[in-house]
Each structure stands twice: as structure tokens, then as C-alpha cells.
């Protein structure tokens, strides 16, 4: 496999995506909302982020599941500070797994199913690029911008959180080790899974929207993590995330093997108009 050929496909698709508002807007808007709105709401109006029901019990559950060192650290804080800390450092962290899932799947859907829809696929498949070179190029164009947006979102969230909380806490509460593990280990594993599944979906559908709608379902397991963390059932600590990442990378491998088998010129052409 020639890497320069995959990079050629990557560059071509990247230029196309950068000029496609339909893909670009959700990729920019969602991280911006997460990066600015969540810390602002949590700090400025802590009561507005309370979930209906039993907020105090929920907070207590979360605190009780946190590592002992963290519990000891926040015991000396006021209830409002505790609330802000738990929300910003723990509760919202799974939101940042939605970004790579969403970005990668939107780009992957456009890159694979979008080519079918725009009738550009046949000339591309007629080139002397191998199936593996084409697939890698398209994976890279889904993975790199998706992870780039996640990283930028994380940096902005960290900066916003620290700016808004430094005066009250007298220290920088972000980032911590679990966040670093999440952004640099778990998010790539999740992103790759989302791309792999979208590739498989794209090879079976005719258009971008159909692929995007089906791949949007990938957000559901991430939301399950969010609710798991909120209820205190599963706290995304570093060790938990490393184990999850390991399992996910294994699943990624299997999914990609399956995707590569489906990524064959004849199958793809048969699905295109």
C-alpha cells in the first residue's frame, strides 16, 4: 500500500469537506456549544443545570463513586463549588465523546455515501488506486478532522472552565488525568469505531443523508455513558477508560476488517446510481 496515494485521497476529500457547509457547520457549532455554553451555564447559574428529581442525591451518588483522593479534595469545598467541580470535571466529560462520534460519522457519511450520491465514484474507482489506499484515505479524512475538532473543543472547554472558575477555586481544575486519557485514548477509539460503522452503513445505502441518519444512532451508547456517569453507576476514571479503549480498539480492528471486505469496487458500484 502506498501512503502517498492515501494522502492524495485525504487531501482531495479534505478540500471538499472544507467547502461543504452541510458538513462543516455541525462540526463547528456542536464543539463550540460544548466548549463555551456548558462551563458558562454551570458557573453562572448552577441551579439551571440541576436535573429534575433528586439533584442532591444524584450529586451525592457521583461524589461517592469518585476516587477517594478526589473526594478528599472536594470535601473542603462549598456545596456550590462541589457542584461546579463535579459537573465540569466529571458530569460533562462524556459530552466530549459525542464530538468525535458526530464529526467522524458526518465526514465518513459524506465521503463514502456522498460520493455515490454525487455520481463521482466511478471515475475514482477507475483510477489505479487500490481498495486499501482508497479506504485508508477516506478513513484519514474522517478521523483527522474529527479528532482535530475534539481537541480544539477540549482546549476551549479547558480554557473557558479555568477562566471562569479560577477566582472561586484558586487553582486550575482542568484538565485532569481522566480528561487527558479520554481525549487522547478513548476518543480516538470511539472515533475509529464510528468511522468503521459508518463505512459499513455507507456501503449499504445510496445517499449521504441515509448514511448520516443511521450513523447518528452511534451517539446512543455515548449517551448511555453520560447517564451512567450522571447516576453514579459508572464513573469514567482513567483505569475504566483505558480498559474501555482497549476493548474498543479490538472492536475497531474487527469492524475495519469487515469494512475492508465490504469496500470492494463492484459492491460499491452496484449500490451507486
Amino acid at each position, binding site marked *: 500500500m502506498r501512503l502517498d*496515494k492515501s494522502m*492524495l485521497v485525504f487531501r*482531495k476529500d479534505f*478540500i*471538499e469537506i472544507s*467547502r*461543504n457547509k452541510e458538513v462543516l457547520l455541525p462540526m463547528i457549532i456542536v464543539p463550540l456549544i460544548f466548549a463555551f455554553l456548558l462551563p458558562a451555564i454551570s458557573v453562572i447559574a448552577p441551579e439551571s443545570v440541576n436535573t429534575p428529581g433528586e439533584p442532591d442525591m444524584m450529586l451525592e451518588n457521583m461524589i461517592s463513586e469518585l476516587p477517594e483522593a478526589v473526594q478528599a479534595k472536594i470535601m473542603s469545598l462549598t456545596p456550590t463549588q462541589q457542584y461546579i467541580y463535579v459537573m465540569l470535571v466529571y458530569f460533562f466529560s462524556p459530552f466530549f465523546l459525542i464530538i468525535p462520534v458526530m464529526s467522524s460519522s458526518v465526514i465518513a457519511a459524506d465521503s463514502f455515501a456522498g460520493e455515490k450520491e*454525487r*455520481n*463521482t*465514484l*466511478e*471515475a*475514482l*474507482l*477507475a*483510477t*489505479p*488506486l*487500490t481498495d486499501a489506499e482508497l479506504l485508508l484515505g477516506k478513513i484519514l479524512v474522517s478521523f483527522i478532522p474529527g479528532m482535530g475538532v475534539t481537541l480544539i473543543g477540549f482546549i476551549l472547554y479547558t480554557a473557558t472552565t479555568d477562566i471562569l472558575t479560577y477566582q472561586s477555586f484558586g487553582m486550575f481544575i482542568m484538565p485532569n488525568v481522566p480528561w487527558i486519557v479520554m481525549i487522547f485514548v478513548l476518543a480516538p477509539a470511539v472515533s475509529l469505531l464510528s468511522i468503521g460503522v459508518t463505512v459499513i452503513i455507507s456501503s449499504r445505502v445510496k445517499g449521504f443523508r441515509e448514511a448520516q441518519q443511521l450513523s447518528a444512532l452511534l451517539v446512543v451508547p455515548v449517551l448511555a455513558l453520560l447517564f451512567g456517569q450522571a447516576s453514579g453507576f459508572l464513573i469514567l476514571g482513567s483505569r475504566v477508560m483505558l480498559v474501555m479503549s482497549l476493548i474498543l480498539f479490538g472492536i475497531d480492528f474487527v469492524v475495519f476488517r469487515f469494512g475492508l471486505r465490504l469496500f470492494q*469496487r*463492484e459492491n460499491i*458500484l*452496484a449500490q451507486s446510481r
Partner: protein
Amino acid sequence: MKSIEAFDLVKSFNGFKAVENLSFSVDEGEIFGLLGPNGAGKTTTIRMLSALIAPTGGRATIAGYDVQDDALKVREIIGILTESPSLYGRLTAMENMEFFAKAYGVTDKSERDTKIRELLDFFQLWDRRNDPVGQYSKGMKQKLAIARALVHSPEILYLDEPTSGLDPKSSKDIRDLMEALTENQHQTILLCTHRLEDAEKLCDRVLIINKGKPITIASPRDLRKRFSSGQEVQVGVSQLDSDLIAMVRGLPMVVNITVNESENRISVSLGNELDTPRLVKALVEYGAEVRYVKPLETSLEDAYLELMEEEQ
């Protein structure tokens, strides 16, 4: 040397035979036409010969390379204009050309730039090279797609409806280009078209297929001859009257006559081509002032339509 050879090619989709036992060969430097109605199997044949889809049966070689065993090499040496232009609308013409040139292995920048400039100049697209292709007209897209197919100077070129959507001048330019490519650079062209006048003007031989099956392979001239019912000539005279028409009708070699009084013209079907001088002699001896004599030949279109009628 044979550029394209197909031996009993078969392609089935879920039991439906799109192409059935297709065998033909194309010589180097030949323009070979693939003709047939919609759904005849032309695009499927081109896709098999481009190593895009695998034949269900039979085999094909392109410049000696097997389409299944040497698929990558086959794709390297062919240039293809697909049914739809297949261009990236958000990329400029220049970006489209550069992408495909690199994908086809034109790695030398100066060679690539020269070739792209030459092609975009030829198709009068150079001034619009930095515009997104999505803003191009249908004809401009078609020209750019042909330019893309030529960007790596392929040995063999597959053109699916190359003059579709083009104005008469551009169509003529494309036809001239195809002739120049085969004459000067000995490129082989497989031309798929519904425009039978294009096939008639350009093709050395044509293969007519219907419902996936080959019907005939012949040169356009031989096909015309095969379906010609004899010799037909058009004669223009200064003065056309009923006596003259009756005289012509009465001549023994005349099979049929059609009269166009407003144009002072008659179209006469004769037994054979040797009868033409006899007809002219009879007209002159009658005292008619003959302005012109034009032989009327069966066109490829007539031959094609008759073949299709026979098939049905």
C-alpha cells in the same frame, strides 16, 4: 498488436445476464464503436474492460493484461470517460485535474502542469480553471471529464457518449481530437455512443449489441453496403415537368422514383451503380438540363435501425 481482446465475456447480476458471450478484439490505434440501445450492456462491458467489475464468465485482456489478474495495471493504462462526468463539484477544474493526474501516477510536476495546461487550453477551459466545477455548464463538465481521461496520456481510451451535451463546434473538436489521437499517437479508442453519425465518421469498426448479446461486428461501410438495396441517386434539373418524370419512370433500370417539384429534384433507385451513367445519358438525350447528380447511400443509422428491427 491487439489493444483489447474479449473472449466470451459474460456478466450476470442476480441471475440476469447483462452481457452474454461477447467476443471481439480491437487493434492498436483503432477507433472501435460499441453501439446498442439503452440497456444493451454497453456500460457493463466498459466496466468489465476497466477492471471495475469482474466478469461472471469468459475473460478479457487490455494490452495483454488480464482484467481480473492485472486489474491495477489495466486501470493504469486506460483513460475513461464515464457515463456521467464524475467530477468533484466543490473542487476547481485545476484541482480535479491535479488529483486525477497524481492518482494516475503523473508524478513529475512540470510534466503534469504542461499536460493540464495543454488539455485545458484545448478545451477552452484554462480561463475558468480556478472556478468550482459545480458552476460549470453541462458541456464544460463534459469537456473537463474528457480532459481528465486524457491527463495521463493513456494507451487506451474508453469514451462513453463523449459528445453528449456538447454544441456542434465542440462535438466536431472532440471528433477531430479522437482522430488525431489515433493517427498521431496510435491511441486506441473504444467509443460508446448513440450518435450514429459520430460512429459513422470515426469508427474503423463497430460492434452492435442488444440485450447483452453481440449482433454484428463490421466496418460502417460494410454495414451500409449490407443494408443497401441498390443504388440511389438524387438528380437536380433546371426544369421538372410531368413528361420528364414519366420518361424517367419508364426507364428499365429505374426501380423507384421520388419527386420534389419545388426543388426541381428527383430521387431515383436504380438496379446497380452502373446504371447511374445510363440514367444521366437518358436525361441529357431527353433534353433535360442536369444541374447535379448526387449518389445517396444507406447511412449507418439506416443499417442500425434495420438490424434492430430484425432483432425484434
